[in-house]
């Protein structure tokens, strides 16, 4: 049985359709990504799953419970990190964990979480005195202190510096290692690509694709390119051979530098042609297709955030 089961959920605000028939399910133990630009219904979807809002139609089950009618029971089993939440400025780190632990019937030992999340040295520091990354670690630890089966993390690395983001990613992988199912809402492609087992791509209130990040990228036949430098004595004929490789769309030469564009797996074919002809190339670079390309192909628009 899936941990989360969402079927044909719709939601309208003031006559505007925010969610238009959302269907997906999340399996136990996976990191499930909800990806899309701001304002595409990601947060609304998660809030409906958490029981903070009611859907206009459709059905939602989380651990077999209805988030609205069984809300109080469900909240024992979920941990939530909301976008834009703070704690009182004068609340100390240990007090926050101790307090939130008291809300649950079967909490985790918050002293363990202090150590796991690198907060032990900060236990007596007040919330307002923490750095952005430290605050984020505390907020995530609070989402886990109730010993949840599902954790919801909404835009958790927004506003963090690159180093803190990387560090946070490692911590999210740790959560999965403890068997907690994670629902990760993000508008960062790299984050989703790095962390998620599966991703639902949201666009204007609908899900346009659900798959693993790798399959989403593979499924997109966007044109991409490779570049290399030819030794000066290389014959011009090699470029004609490359032009005839399946998938190659164009070949351009600018001095020693050759740029080849094409679709699907043309780059592998081109490199094998070069090897067969014993052509020596240097500075070979193949542009990797990314989730950004997949997103543009799926939604027909640039990923503007």
């Amino acid at each position, binding site marked *: 049985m899936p941990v989360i089961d969402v079927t044909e959920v719709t939601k309208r605000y003031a006559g505007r359709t925010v969610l238009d028939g959302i269907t997906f399910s999340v399996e136990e133990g996976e990191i499930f990504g909800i990806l899309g630009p701001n304002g595409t219904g990601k947060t609304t979807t998660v809030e409906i799953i958490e029981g903070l809002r009611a859907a206009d139609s459709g059905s939602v089950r989380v651990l077999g419970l209805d988030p609205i009618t069984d809300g109080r029971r469900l*909240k024992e089993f979920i941990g939530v990190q909301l976008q834009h939440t703070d704690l009182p400025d004068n609340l100390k780190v240990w007090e926050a964990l*101790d*307090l939130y632990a008291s809300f*649950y019937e079967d909490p985790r030992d918050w002293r363990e979480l202090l150590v796991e999340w690198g907060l032990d040295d900060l236990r007596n520091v007040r919330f307002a005195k923490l750095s952005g990354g430290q605050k984020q670690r505390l907020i995530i630890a609070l989402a886990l202190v109730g010993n949840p089966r599902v954790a919801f993390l909404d835009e958790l690395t927004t506003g963090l510096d690159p180093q803190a983001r990387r560090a946070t990613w490692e911590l999210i992988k740790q959560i999965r290692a403890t068997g907690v199912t994670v629902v990760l809402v993000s508008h960062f492609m790299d984050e989703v690509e790095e962390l998620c087992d599966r991703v639902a791509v949201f666009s204007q209130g609908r899900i346009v694709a659900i798959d693993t990040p790798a399959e989403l990228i593979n499924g997109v036949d966007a044109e991409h390119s490779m570049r290399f430098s030819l030794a000066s004595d290389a014959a011009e004929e090699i470029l004609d051979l490359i032009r005839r490789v399946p998938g190659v769309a164009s070949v351009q030469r600018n001095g020693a530098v050759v740029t080849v564009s094409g679709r699907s797996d043309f780059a592998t074919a081109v490199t094998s042609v070069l090897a067969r002809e014993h052509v020596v190339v240097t500075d070979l670079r193949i542009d990797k297709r990314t989730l950004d390309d997949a997103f543009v192909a799926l939604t027909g628009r640039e990923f503007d955030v």
Partner: protein
Amino acid sequence: MSATAKLTAVESKLLVREPGSLFTVVIPLFVLIVFGSSIGPDDTTLLPMTIAIAIGLVGLYLMPTALATYREKGILRRLSTTPVRPASLLVVQLILQFVLALASCGALLAVAGTVLGARLPANALTFIAVFVLGTASMFAIGLLIAALAPSGRAANGIGVLLYFPMAYLAGLMQPVSQMPAILVRIGEFTPLGAFRQSLQDVWEGTAPDPVLLGVMAAYAVVVSIAAARFFRWE
């Protein structure tokens, strides 16, 4: 410890750490001590004034700022994702703010009764009734500010802005004997003014005017209902 007990313990610590809490106790005490040296043992004006100042500061400034900040920071919303109802936090806050009001009033009475040798109310029961009614009416206004203010900072601003005209009309800036009669009359229809005047009646040993008690009760009920009606959790 149960969630409510823990919440109360943590919120008490936060209230003590908040500099505003100290001010609401210290400012009325300061007024009492500065003017207390020049009052006679029969004075019935100063203590009612300082008690009204204390309750006005808690109700108009401290309490709405705390509640609006909790909403602004998303703390109420965060609580609604846990098994604890966010309403518990509001109830705990209201109780603690009332305890703070009691503490502030207690400090005033203690200093006045010992150091200054000032007159204390003869009828404790009437005093308690007036105190509860006056505090309820001021807290109702504080709740309405918290309900309407978009942020903690805004609540603070509205509270301060309301405090000065209300304190003036209530006769907290200068004794009512030195104010134009018409303003004193208007002041009796404000909750803070009705509160101070009722306290003064208690200090003079007479029964408080039922109209003043009615004014406070009306504010407490009507404004609380409005606050509940307009309150937003996020």
